[in-house]
């Protein structure tokens, strides 16, 4: 039994949590950072996809003209593309491989969604490939497509499970129907959410090349291991025959969290032409290649007492899914856990349509789910004359209603209080439609944020050099979240070195495996892995010292040795001390190395482990929580809404870098403001094809939409999450944002908009309603 601590305690003068500049910042501001489409490989060729005009068809292709075009090396269709070892819908597909799409384009002559790839053109220059792609002649044998769950041709069904089997299609707790019927307050409302697309600024890109049976891809992915596993499975290779590299990633937000068909196609055609191939999706192709947030409608029935205490929640969601999967965001999870409510029911309905699968998009389920519950609760607050914060406090959940577990930590009350103070909530006129600033109606709204800590494991390798440097590695990715930086800070503190002596490497499958950077798990898992690996490094150094007769720590007990700032010493006699470098030098070791596995969420047993009455380790419900406060100015005649102030206060465990964390929370709020006010992909209901698939038609917020924002974190020490006490913040900042905006719009205008985005057309006539 060693004395290594199980939970990170910040050393004096440590850098964890400090607002350190990004270590990869210099590469990014000078243009030196290389993203996946930016490696000038010798003999590089360019692939361009030919995609289907129709959404439901069989195709035959004439590639003669395209093949003759200057610079063209090959044109692949379903007839001549190098075959795959296994298809994602094969019954014999390998276990553990969960492709995001159970259908592989170019595996036959079928088209199942608009813009599905039907051919790939490879040429020696990008312009030549692009032009040749327009020369492929396509004949369609088309059938009428189904466009969405609202299409009269669509057939609704009740799925056993959604989200690739992760969530039950129907859940009941207590007796919600009866409870609702007996409730003094009964509130029923339907919410709709437009199709949203992630639209990271970096389009999906794959640069692939083969050396014999070894495949290397530079891929824009949030999960190099998942991409490696997928490519290995599809090509019938061992994992170690596939190398995936993602040194820099230009955002992802979920759409780069899976290995989508375009990556497989790039590798396929690279094998075919025998040269490196670069495939970069066009912006319009980004709308039909990497998933989206599905079109959906939610009906939420709420029962409450006259005091505003929740008695029943019944949630139904209907959404569109692809021809092959049962994907839907699990909106109901947050609805069932956010507040104390004894009776709860959730059910999902799906309809298959000729669309590609939807996928996780920042705060999948939590974002639209919170829009429903946080809007309904706001309604009830106004109806009963209760302050919106007060009604949330009256329904404050002391434990997780979904599973009855205690919280590992929860600082939500502090978030409400501090947020209200920063925002000046008490100065708000509680009546809607009463606050004016010139021709604008001013509104203030708030909402709760929460996101679960998903269970996750990862590994990291720490190599400590005798000269006081260290290389730390983990196959994670940094999609802008600051992984390079926060892991450098973590490494510095756990090794007692200054951060400029640390080199943290990520984004290569030759490094120790880390989980996908998604679901807010990366920061906690990887930092904990580094912590565990560093403990093991110190264990090894201690062993060396104990066995070294020249060391002042010779024959000391393991438990008596502590490490501070890279110096080993006796706990009880600090004069018996020696820097690690001296120990390594005498042992003639240039370096010492260890790998560690960090556990995150369920499975971690910290120092403060407690047991329940049956002496079993007590498990906790683990979530981050926060509160958003939003001020809007609505022009009632023109229907425009501008967010003019924003305050967010959050409790998310240990914050690894105050600067990057603040940025990430601001980014989450802006992402949510986009969904709230402007983001909508419009799918033509006759053609099942998008009509605004570009960044002029699909509006994401621009600089002028966004005010300065105030973000704070509540100090939170949570020893149950993982060794670093990090909950992760990637999604949290977005949850509840749309509701906070909608609640502010209601407060401004007296008009409740339940259909996102809240565009001017939906707000016209507000002048008359107040």
């Amino acid at each position, binding site marked *: 039994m060693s004395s290594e601590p199980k939970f990170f305690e910040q050393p004096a003068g440590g850098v964890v949590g400090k607002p350190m500049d990004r270590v990869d910042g210099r590469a990014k501001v000078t243009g030196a950072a290389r993203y996946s489409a930016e490696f000038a490989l010798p003999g590089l060729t360019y692939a361009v996809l030919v995609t289907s005009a129709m959404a439901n068809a069989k195709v035959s292709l004439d590639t003669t003209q395209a093949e003759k075009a200057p*610079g063209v090396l090959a044109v692949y269709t379903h007839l001549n593309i190098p075959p795959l070892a296994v298809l994602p819908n094969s019954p014999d597909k390998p276990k553990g491989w969960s492709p995001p799409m159970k259908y592989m384009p170019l595996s036959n002559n079928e088209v199942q969604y608009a813009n599905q790839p039907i051919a790939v053109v490879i040429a020696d220059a*990008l312009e030549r490939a692009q032009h040749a792609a327009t020369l492929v002649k396509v004949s369609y044998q088309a059938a009428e497509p189904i466009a969405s769950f609202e299409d009269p041709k669509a057939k609704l069904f009740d799925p056993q499970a959604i989200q690739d089997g992760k969530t039950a299609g129907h859940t009941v707790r207590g007796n919600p129907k009866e409870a609702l019927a007996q409730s003094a307050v009964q509130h029923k409302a339907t919410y709709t959410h437009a199709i949203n697309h992630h639209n990271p600024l970096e389009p999906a890109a794959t640069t692939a090349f083969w050396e014999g049976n070894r495949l290397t891809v530079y891929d824009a992915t949030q999960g190099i291991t998942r991409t490696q596993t997928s490519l290995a499975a599809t090509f019938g290779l061992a994992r170690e025959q596939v190398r995936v590299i993602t040194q820099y990633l230009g955002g992802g937000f979920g759409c780069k969290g899976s290995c989508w068909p375009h990556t497989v196609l790039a590798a396929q055609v690279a094998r075919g032409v025998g040269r490196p191939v670069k495939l970069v999706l066009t912006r319009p192709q980004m709308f039909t290649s990497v998933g989206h947030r599905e079109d959906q409608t939610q009906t939420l029935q709420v029962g409450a007492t006259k005091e505003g205490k929740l008695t029943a929640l019944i949630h139904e969601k209907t959404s569109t899914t692809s021809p092959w999967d049962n994907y839907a965001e699990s909106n109901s999870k947050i609805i069932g856990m956010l507040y104390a409510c004894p009776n709860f029911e959730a059910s999902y309905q799906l309809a298959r349509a000729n669309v590609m699968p939807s996928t996780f998009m920042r705060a999948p389920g939590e974002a639209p789910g919170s829009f429903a519950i946080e809007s309904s609760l706001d309604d009830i607050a106004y109806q009963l004359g209760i302050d919106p914060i007060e009604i949330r406090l009256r329904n404050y959940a002391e434990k997780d209603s979904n599973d009855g577990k205690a919280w590992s930590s929860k600082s939500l009350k502090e978030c409400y209080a501090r947020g209200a103070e920063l925002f000046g909530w008490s100065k708000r006129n509680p009546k809607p439609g009463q606050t004016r600033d010139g021709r604008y109606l001013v509104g203030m709204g708030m909402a709760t944020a929460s996101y679960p800590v998903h269970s996750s494991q990862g590994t990291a390798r720490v190599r400590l050099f005798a000269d006081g440097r*260290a290389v730390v590695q983990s196959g994670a990715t940094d999609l*802008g979240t600051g992984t390079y930086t926060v892991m450098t800070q973590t490494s510095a503190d756990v090794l007692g070195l200054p951060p400029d002596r640390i080199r943290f490497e990520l984004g290569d499958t030759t490094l120790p495996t880390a989980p996908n950077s998604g679901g807010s798990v990366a920061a906690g898992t990887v930092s904990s892995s580094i912590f565990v690996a560093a403990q093991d490094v110190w264990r090894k150094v201690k062993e060396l010292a104990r066995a070294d007769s020249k060391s002042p720590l010779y024959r000391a007990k393991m438990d008596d040795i502590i490490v501070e700032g890279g110096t080993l010493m006796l706990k009880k006699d600090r004069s018996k001390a020696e820097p690690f470098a001296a120990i390594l030098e005498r042992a003639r070791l240039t370096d010492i190395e260890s790998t560690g596995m960090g556990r995150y969420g369920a499975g971690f047993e910290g120092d403060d482990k407690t047991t329940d009455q049956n002496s079993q380790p007590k498990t906790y419900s683990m979530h981050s929580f926060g509160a958003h406060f939003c001020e809007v100015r609505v022009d009632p005649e023109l229907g425009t809404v501008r967010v003019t102030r924003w305050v967010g206060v959050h409790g998310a465990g240990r914050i690894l870098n105050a600067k990057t964390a603040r*940025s990430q929370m601001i980014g989450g709020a802006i992402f949510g403001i986009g969904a709230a006010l402007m983001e909508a992909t419009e799918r033509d209901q006759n053609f099942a094809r998008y009509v605004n698939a570009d960044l002029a038609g699909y509006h994401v917020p621009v*600089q002028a939409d966004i005010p300065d924002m105030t973000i704070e974190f509540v100090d939170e020490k949570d020893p149950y999450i993982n060794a670093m006490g990090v909950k992760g913040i990637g999604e949290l900042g977005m949850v509840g944002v749309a509701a906070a905006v909608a609640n502010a719009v209601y407060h401004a205008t007296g008009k409740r908009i339940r259909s996102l985005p809240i565009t001017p057309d939906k707000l016209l006539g507000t002048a008359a309603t107040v």
Partner: protein
Amino acid sequence: MHPDTFDPTAGGPPPEQRPDDGSRRTFIKQASGILGLAVAPPFISQAEKLAAYTGKVEGATEMKLKVNGSIRTLRLEPRVTLLDALRENLNLTGSKKGCDQGQCGACTVLVDGRRVNSCLTLAITTQGKEITTIEGLAKGEELHPMQAAFLKHDGFQCGYCTPGQICSAVACVQEGHTKNDAEIREWMSGNLCRCGAYPNIVAAIKEVAGKGDGKS
């Protein structure tokens, strides 16, 4: 072909390629001899002699682009955009392709000191003009004040829109569109940032504009 694999003797900051300042020509170009970089670099003195091309051009043709102060000779088809010329033919990948349709601003470069979208600019039309990309802003190791301010204020996350934001911001200051936050926001609205670094970008620009050292 692979980037550096694990080097146990290496230390220091994380891997970082040196920016290609436009003068290095050590990289290997694609196998096709028809297009791309021509063999002989011209003398710098030719810079002043660049003249508009008036004859009719069909197919690949030689063109001279003055990028970050040095003349680069390329053999390209007229349809090649400035952005693709930079990224695919000059290995200057700092300028980013976010939409290729003038809808995101990630490709923003300065042409004769004015910010433009290089994705909607044909390379052939920029002959005889001064092209400045993100790689041309720093003086050696010394960052341009705008680059330093972006770093300090965390004016980016993923970094993909960043080169365009910085080029745009440099021009925004030079244009004098920095009277207040609202003006900065409006005049920086041609550069989308999906990570949501907008408030931090405003802070960075304010700092540079306030010091009056954004001007070159």
